[in-house]
């Protein structure tokens, strides 16, 4: 395989990672942007989505396509419902104070992780891809499912963008993000917007997990890496900037392999975490210069 083909393959692999990461990170960024809540449990919603996908596809095992479509629809709805309940029952009474909400979401993190361990066990759970065919490029054949992941994620990103730009609910979200008190004065039900945003954030993570689970397996600890990567994307893209997050997530996904080529995986993670801490200290508006709000 010559260099061009190799580069093309690496780009495709990077795009798969970028697709999943941008959805997950978008969810985290939306919650932080609108609610100013750091959702440490975000990775657990991702993990929950993956396990629910495994559970649903197993229930409809004889029809893989139908099972997968059901998972793609039901798993995010369930996860969104759990997040909605958590928001109403715990975060709302806390009045969204930064310290108390972060402590509460740490509580969510442990509870969800432990419940998943009890319900689904410590073993990784594989999910069959709903269809198996290779798309033939001139140089190599490439998994059609991975291309499907890239396209679906792109579609979902566009849909989210459309909702935020052109629909009433998106307008309410942007108004709440801009200034929640003024939004309240203009008759926007800020409390309900918060609950919706928290649920949508969790659903985005769950969708990303359903998409990736036929490629990676579901595991009860998978949420921690998802959380770390999403954090990196949100911070590098600039806290509170949703576009910045998506750009950062795509760049990180595309360049994903690079760090681990040069360093051992642990060292790559060390470098990445230190880098994020330093970005947050010295360039809190993110690396792309967007204005922090």
């Amino acid at each position, binding site marked *: 395989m010559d260099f061009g083909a190799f580069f093309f393959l690496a780009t495709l692999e990077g795009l798969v990672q970028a697709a999943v990461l941008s959805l997950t990170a978008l969810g985290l960024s939306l919650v*932080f942007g609108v609610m*100013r809540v*750091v959702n440490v449990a975000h990775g657990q919603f991702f993990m929950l989505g993956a396990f629910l996908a495994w559970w649903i596809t197993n229930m409809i095992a004889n029809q893989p396509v139908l099972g997968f479509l059901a998972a793609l629809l039901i798993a995010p709805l369930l996860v969104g419902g759990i997040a909605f309940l958590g928001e109403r029952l*715990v975060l709302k*009474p*806390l009045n969204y104070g*930064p*310290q*108390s909400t*972060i*402590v*509460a979401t*740490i*509580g*969510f*993190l*442990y*509870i969800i*992780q*432990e*419940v998943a*361990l*009890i319900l689904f066990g410590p073993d990784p759970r594989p999910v069959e891809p709903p269809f198996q065919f290779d798309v033939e490029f001139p140089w190599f054949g490439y998994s059609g499912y991975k291309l499907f992941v890239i396209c679906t994620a792109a579609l979902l990103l566009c849909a989210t963008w459309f909702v935020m730009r052109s629909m009433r609910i998106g307008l309410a979200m942007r108004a709440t993000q801009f200034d929640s008190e003024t939004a309240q004065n203009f008759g926007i039900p800020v409390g309900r917007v918060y609950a919706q945003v928290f649920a949508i954030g969790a659903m985005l993570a769950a969708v990303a997990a359903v998409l990736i689970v036929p490629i990676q397996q579901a595991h009860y600890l998978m949420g921690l890496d998802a959380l*770390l990567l999403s*954090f990196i994307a949100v*911070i590098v893209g600039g*806290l509170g900037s949703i576009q910045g997050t998506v750009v950062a997530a795509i760049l990180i996904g595309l360049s994903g392999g690079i760090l681990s080529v040069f360093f*051992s995986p*642990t*060292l790559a*993670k*060390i470098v990445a*975490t*230190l880098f*994020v*801490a*330093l970005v*947050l*200290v*010295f360039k*809190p508006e993110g690396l792309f210069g967007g204005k922090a709000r």
Partner: protein
Amino acid sequence: MTAASTRKSIFLHLAVVAVLFGLQFVVPDYDKLTITRIMVIAVYAIGYNVLFGYTGLLSLGHAMFFAVGLYAAGLPVYYFGLDLPLAFALGIGASLILSLLIGVIALRTSGVSFMIVTLMFAQAGYLLTFHLTEYTQGDAGLNLPASIRSFGFAGITFDLTKPDVRYNLALCILALAILIVFAVVRSRSGRILVAIRENEERTRMLGYNSFAHKLKAFVIAGGLSGTSGATFAILFAYVGASFASIQNSIEVLLFTLLGGAGTILGPLLGTAAMVYLVDKTSEFTTAHLLIVGLALIVLVAWFPKGILGSVRERWVKWIP
């Protein structure tokens, strides 16, 4: 603070130390070990509380200071057979230096960013213990050999394989930690810390250098965390990566919240309550993280002042 309430609170803290001293003659050996562990970990929580409870800064990464004390004391003993008092001093010194460095960087941020930055630094430290698995043995950790577990100090030989010796050494260090924090909290600069917690802008406007005071609180908290780590390594002859994990940072937060943030004895009470709770429930469930998670939510949502904080609010106003 009136002189009477100062006298009362000094008496209270002396009484707590005296009760802990007396306990060793009545409790069975198993509980003696548990209480020793509680006293050592309580030093960590008491230090953490200076930052979280009094200054109002929520750090999610204090396991790194505990761990640096643990490793800086434990590794030289393991590899070079360093004298234990010297190793202890080394552990404390290392944690003081690290907390000064991290504090200078992390305190440039505030609020949400501060929490994430401390979390990220601690995570980098945790990963570092795995990167250096060759020397630290990662999660499995190192057991210090029994042959180097005694030391002579001031003409007396301390044998750390004896439970009584460990118990009383832990008690001494706990008493010292309480004394230090008591002095800090009751001092002028302790009141400035509380002022920063209540309203940093206003404190700065009154002409106080809030950064310097926050850094001081950060270093005191880091140093006491490191002291706790070093004590743990020496008394229990074990160093392992799990003490550097995020979970260890969260647990100290939980102990402090449970006992009552912003009270001197709260963290001790919280540590004791939580360690015993996990101990008792481990008989019928292994899911102790579930308890930790539930406890965090219950505390922060319905019981934010913790045990001692609520007691102070309702009945005994003079508890420092």
